[in-house]
């Protein structure tokens, strides 16, 4: 398959076949990660910029590791160190990156649409590393990789996503992709975090986790931003955990072997009980490893698979 995308802004932009192609490409990448010498010359001479306007050790490090293993040069612009703090607009930052002839840019930004905005300004490719509450396509891809690896495939599998659906770019990108891959998705959360308009995703929504668990092949817990309590979106961590927190006992209701995913970082004892997070059902650490592999695959494909395409 020829890779035809200059950017990856939203999982919605990929066909099922393209998603599968990325996941296939990630398989040998994951093998590479287990080698004693983790360095390839494939992308030597290519340059990549990571622009992180939101704190994210996990995603940033994952992209950085992926790019370095493939031999690309990586520049990290983090808000604390760059001229962004001096009031430079995203537009001007984009112009600067353009002038530096960078080949690929990863952006993480609190504003929905920031990645699309940057892509409009740049000739370089743009990977959306998470924009506001809109999309997080690489997280979705690594989740698909993990699910496929553990469940053998996705078609017909029941995936329950539980938590703050309204504010979650992870949930949005996962649902859109999982639908393409033929999985059955159920969204669960309290009405304040799962309002009727989330029906746009076209999957089942429910306020009752216990009722949705039977038959689930995988349960994905979302991180609960604790400051949402101050906005009145949920009354207490105690009640949230009682209704939507994952525990070993509750997971038993699936009546089958079920894996637990979480995009991290986890709030132990809030969306997931500590002992469950560290149990054999949990694939949370595996997700991190797979994140590097999937991002390697994506960077490799977007850089032209080692071709000599030049950004001018």
């Amino acid at each position: 398959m020829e890779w035809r995308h200059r950017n990856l802004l939203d999982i919605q932009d990929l066909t099922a076949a393209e998603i599968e192609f990325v996941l296939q490409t990630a398989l040998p990448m994951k093998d590479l990660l287990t080698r004693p010498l983790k360095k390839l010359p494939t992308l030597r001479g290519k340059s990549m910029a990571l622009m992180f306007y939101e704190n994210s050790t996990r995603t940033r490090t994952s992209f950085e590791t992926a790019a370095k293993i493939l031999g690309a040069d990586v520049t990290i612009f983090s808000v604390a160190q760059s001229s962004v703090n001096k009031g430079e607009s995203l537009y001007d930052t984009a112009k600067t990156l353009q002038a530096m002839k960078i080949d690929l840019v990863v952006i993480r930004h609190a504003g929905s649409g920031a990645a699309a905005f940057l892509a409009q300004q740049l000739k370089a490719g743009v990977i959306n590393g998470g924009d506001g509450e809109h999309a997080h396509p690489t997280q979705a891809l690594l989740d698909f990789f993990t699910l496929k690896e553990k469940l053998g495939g996705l078609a017909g599998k029941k995936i329950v996503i539980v938590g703050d659906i309204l504010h979650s770019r992870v949930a949005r990108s996962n649902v859109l992709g999982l639908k393409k891959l033929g999985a059955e998705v159920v969204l669960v959360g309290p009405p304040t975090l799962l309002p009727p308009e989330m029906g746009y995703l076209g999957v089942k929504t429910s306020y009752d986790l216990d009722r949705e668990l039977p038959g689930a092949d995988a349960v994905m817990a979302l991180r609960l931003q604790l400051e949402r309590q101050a906005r009145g979106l949920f009354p207490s961590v105690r009640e949230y955990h009682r209704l939507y927190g994952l525990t070993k006992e509750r997971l038993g209701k699936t009546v089958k072997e079920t894996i637990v995913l979480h995009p991290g970082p986890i709030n132990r004892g809030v969306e997931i009980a500590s002992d469950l997070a560290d149990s054999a059902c949990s694939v949370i650490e595996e997700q991190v490893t797979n994140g590097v592999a999937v991002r390697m695959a994506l960077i490799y494909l977007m850089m032209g698979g080692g071709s000599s395409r030049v950004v001018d």
Partner: protein
Amino acid sequence: MLWIKNAHLLDPVNRISGRGSLLVRGGRIVKVVVGEELTAAAVLALLGCSDLAEVSVVDGAGKYLFPGLIDAHVHLREPGQEEKEEIKSGARAAARGGFTSILAMANTRPVIDTRALVEYVRLQGERAGKARVYPVAAVTKGLAGQELTEMVDLKAGGAVAFSDDGKGIQSAEVMRLALEYAKLTGCPVISHCEDENLAGAGVIRKGETSARLGLRGIPASAESVMVARDALLAKETGGRLHLAHISTKESVRVIRAAKEAGIDLTAEVNPHHLIFADEDVPLTGTSYKVNPPLPSREDQAALLEGLLDGTIDLLATDHAPHTWEEKAKPFAEAPFGINGLETALAAVWQELVAKGKLKPERLIELWAVNPARRFGLPGGTLAEGALADLVLFDPEWREVVTAETRESKSHNTPFLGKELQGFPVMVWVGGKLVVKDRKVLP
């Protein structure tokens, strides 16, 4: 002196509709004749003049001649934010868009809350010498929503209405007092209905589109609960209330009921709320970012119904210029506002009038007659003796909206780069020609 002939004259107040002639002398309309051709001799006699060379003769064949439109909701940004718009550029843009009078909102820097500032706005409008500029003064000092302004003095300086537009008055008690005190002036209080608690950090209407784009939603109730509050306060106080930029079906329902109850209130709708819906908003389309946010299709249907059945009284642009730099940002960071003066009439004509949804007569009522009445302004009529504020409108004129041809200092419109059909080709203010062949005269 001026003789406009062969145009389709339109004036719903005086029930004028038909091909005819209109004569102007001394800045006023002296004669309107429909259904018969005037001879040059007759024109000279009517104008009391001996030589046709002293009369400008305009052939309006194929065009409409309206009373100049009056836009009750314009942000001119001067003083303080002249990079976005100035009174002069705004008054020129207004004229080019077919408006011979505009009401300039008070949310400038500083806020128009003292008589000196009201007079400044009025005088700058006079200096510009294009569309008439009527100042709207603030309801509360500094738009802080707490202490009332010196409304009587502000009116003496030229204010025609009071509004904290740009911000809703959050305190019901302050709004109640404003409606009471403004009775001293006879001027309406214009309410920007927005409950800040409900609106929160929203940037687009709450619904499936906000969910899909991952943008914070503003619920329809953020507007409609305040519409209901203000209608009840107007009833209780007997004050005169005008509701700016109504955008929800619930608001329309409340206004309809309030009018049935005999409450003294009027309401306006902005063209962009009739033409674009939330589902049309692209994720990077900050020119569609406006407050109140673009509504649902259902809301649009209710707004149009309200325009037709008299629930809604006015069309108004809510012309809100912003610079390119401010809008060239991710959606949540860009300011709210659509630049409307130069495109609004064309857009409404193309999307509503040409499609048979709105009669030209009703358009004139909504955009000239009713604003003149509500705010006590001259204009809005072709009556003999009235000011010659006139628009010659060509329904066939097609034009691509480009930054180069525009008079406004900003170009934050979803129509930029797009073609519209139906534009004013000539505009007169007090009998003086200000726009000719789509160009504003120096």
